[in-house]
């Protein structure tokens, strides 16, 4: 046989599976779908509807089948599986995308620290029994301490010390703690976590901070800023105008004088009418140690003098 004949034969075979159209067909292999964007041929449509429909469908399916047969395959127990690419057509979902599960506090911490999770097996190997036993639950390994027939008692233990009861209590406490943590995680997931509203103490501190800032002459402008401190709003220094009417000036000065003249209201300032501030004087004389220390010192000096 001549080579040209073989080639011709091959070309003829190829011809049988090749479809030629004006506009190439769009194949979406992921959805096993082919779309033929060519306009409908009105003549053949009217002449013989069924035949026309079948021939168009055949051409389309031929293109689709060629595309499917050229896909890479994997073997499976039932035979070769053609691996389909992800579909190109977008189809609306039936249900919204699932929301990601909220992380537990431990998971958040582990993520931040880069701790990878390793799942514990449910069974652990028991050397004594030479068998796999449950880590917890029925005949669980976590109950070994309370079920052993002999247990050590510390030297200074009470007379009614029960090692089995102690181990059991400890285990129960661990379980209770875990349940509490789970509950907190659930609460946090619902958004009503314990730290969602600022606690009372924090609000108190904020309030105090705001008052202190207002009480300096510069309205806290040159104060040392704390970390995360917010800028106070609506706080402005107010300057009196330099020129005021004599009436006003007089009344202002009089008000200052009247303040000075008033009975002191605070307990501390009530100390007496004396000009000397006794408290301050004691503090200065005792170098901040207080009146008792001052008295002791003076006594000691007296004693020394007497001996000599």
């Amino acid at each position: 046989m001549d080579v040209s004949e073989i080639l011709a034969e091959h070309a003829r075979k190829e011809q049988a599976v090749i479809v030629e159209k004006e506009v190439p067909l769009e194949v979406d292999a992921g959805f096993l779908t082919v779309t033929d964007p060519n306009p409908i041929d009105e003549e053949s449509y009217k002449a013989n509807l069924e035949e026309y429909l079948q021939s168009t469908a055949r051409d389309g399916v031929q293109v689709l089948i060629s595309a499917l047969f050229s896909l890479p395959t994997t073997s499976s127990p039932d035979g070769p599986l053609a691996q389909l690419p992800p579909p190109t057509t977008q189809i609306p979902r039936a249900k919204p995308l699932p929301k990601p599960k909220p992380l537990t506090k431990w998971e958040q911490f582990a993520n931040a620290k880069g701790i990878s999770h390793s799942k514990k097996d449910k069974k652990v190997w028991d050397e004594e029994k030479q068998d796999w036993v449950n880590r917890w639950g029925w005949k669980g390994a976590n109950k070994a301490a309370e079920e052993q027939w002999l247990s050590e008692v510390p030297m200074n233990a009470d007379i009614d010390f029960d090692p089995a009861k102690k181990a059991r209590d400890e285990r129960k406490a661990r379980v209770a703690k875990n349940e509490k943590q789970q509950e907190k995680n659930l609460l946090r997931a619902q958004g009503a976590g314990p730290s969602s509203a600022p606690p009372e103490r924090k609000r108190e501190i904020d309030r105090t901070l705001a008052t202190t800032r207002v009480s300096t002459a510069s309205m806290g402008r040159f104060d040392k800023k704390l970390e995360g401190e917010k800028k106070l709003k609506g706080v402005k220094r107010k300057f009196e105008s330099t020129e005021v009417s004599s009436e006003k000036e007089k009344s202002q000065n009089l008000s200052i004088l009247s303040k000075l003249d008033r009975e002191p209201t605070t307990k501390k300032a009530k100390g007496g009418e004396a000009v000397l501030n006794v408290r301050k004087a004691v503090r200065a004389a005792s170098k901040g140690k207080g009146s008792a220390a001052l008295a002791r010192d003076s006594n000691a000096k007296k004693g020394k003098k007497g001996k000599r």
Partner: protein
Amino acid sequence: MLRTIKPKNARSKRALKARESKEVEDPRTAIFVRGTNAGEKVQNVMQELMALKRPYAISFSKKNTVRPFEDPASLEFWAQKNDASLFVVGQSNKKRPDGMTFVRMFDNRVLDMLEVGVENFVSMREFKTPKATPGHKPLMHFASELFTTHPRLQQLKSLLLTFFNGEEIDGIHLAGLEHVISVTLGPTPPSLSSTGTATTTLGGPTGDLQPQGEALPKVHIRAYTIRLLASGTKVPRVELTPMGPSLDLTLRRHQDADAEVLKQALRRPKLKKQDVAKGLGKKRKNLEVDEMGDLRGRIHVEKQDLSKLQTRKMKGLKAVRGEAMDVDEESAGDEHTSSERKRRRTD
């Protein structure tokens, strides 16, 4: 509204979990609802469509007072109760004889609807040909340029695709491809072929587009079985045999999807890290992820030129000047000059 159920045992817990939304969705279940007056033809059509859709089909064969375009409440109730997201409602009356409404749901709410009228119907039973195995995935074939340009027909295509084939799979057994559902339109009327999409968006949500419905071509739905013949090449030659049912439909009322809801419904899950590494998101050459999840790259180095390699310098290896030239010429120079030189040497 249904009450929210709190599972009391493991079985009901599993059942509820199966209904939760998933990243890769299960095949959609369709409910075929018989309206108050369905008529024999529509009932038969629904029966045959159900045969194609099996096993993901539920039949509501009693008379149901349901008007999807007026009040979708009962559809929403059924969707939730049956975990179904597709409906076909058959209803026939004087104004709209032999009507079928395709309804697609999202999150147990109506996403969009399309009403069609059945004109001609030939049952599967009338074709005395082999049928496809129930449950096998069909191929889909759409023919007309309107499927890419006209919003109503885009909606029809999307609906039918969802109905028969809207499930993402990553592999298929090629021998199991048994039938094709072909959707072909009638000849495009000249009014549509020129103006295209401009005329169509006026309809509004529940627009009864009678004058425009007239303008839209007929829809021919046919089902064929596929025969794959050996062609001598790797790709077989395809022959089709009509299997039935065959339907001729006209488009009637429709309700488009709300843009906001549609956006929600079209949201895709984020690609997995491994998929991105494999290059699903964007193309990455010469990179692959092995079974252990390690990223492996392949680098291509040009062939090393060993002729310029500097080896140990020795006196004995040094080429004599004249001889070296000859050798170079013979190896690298062109044939003509070297042969000439040889001839000269022999002279």
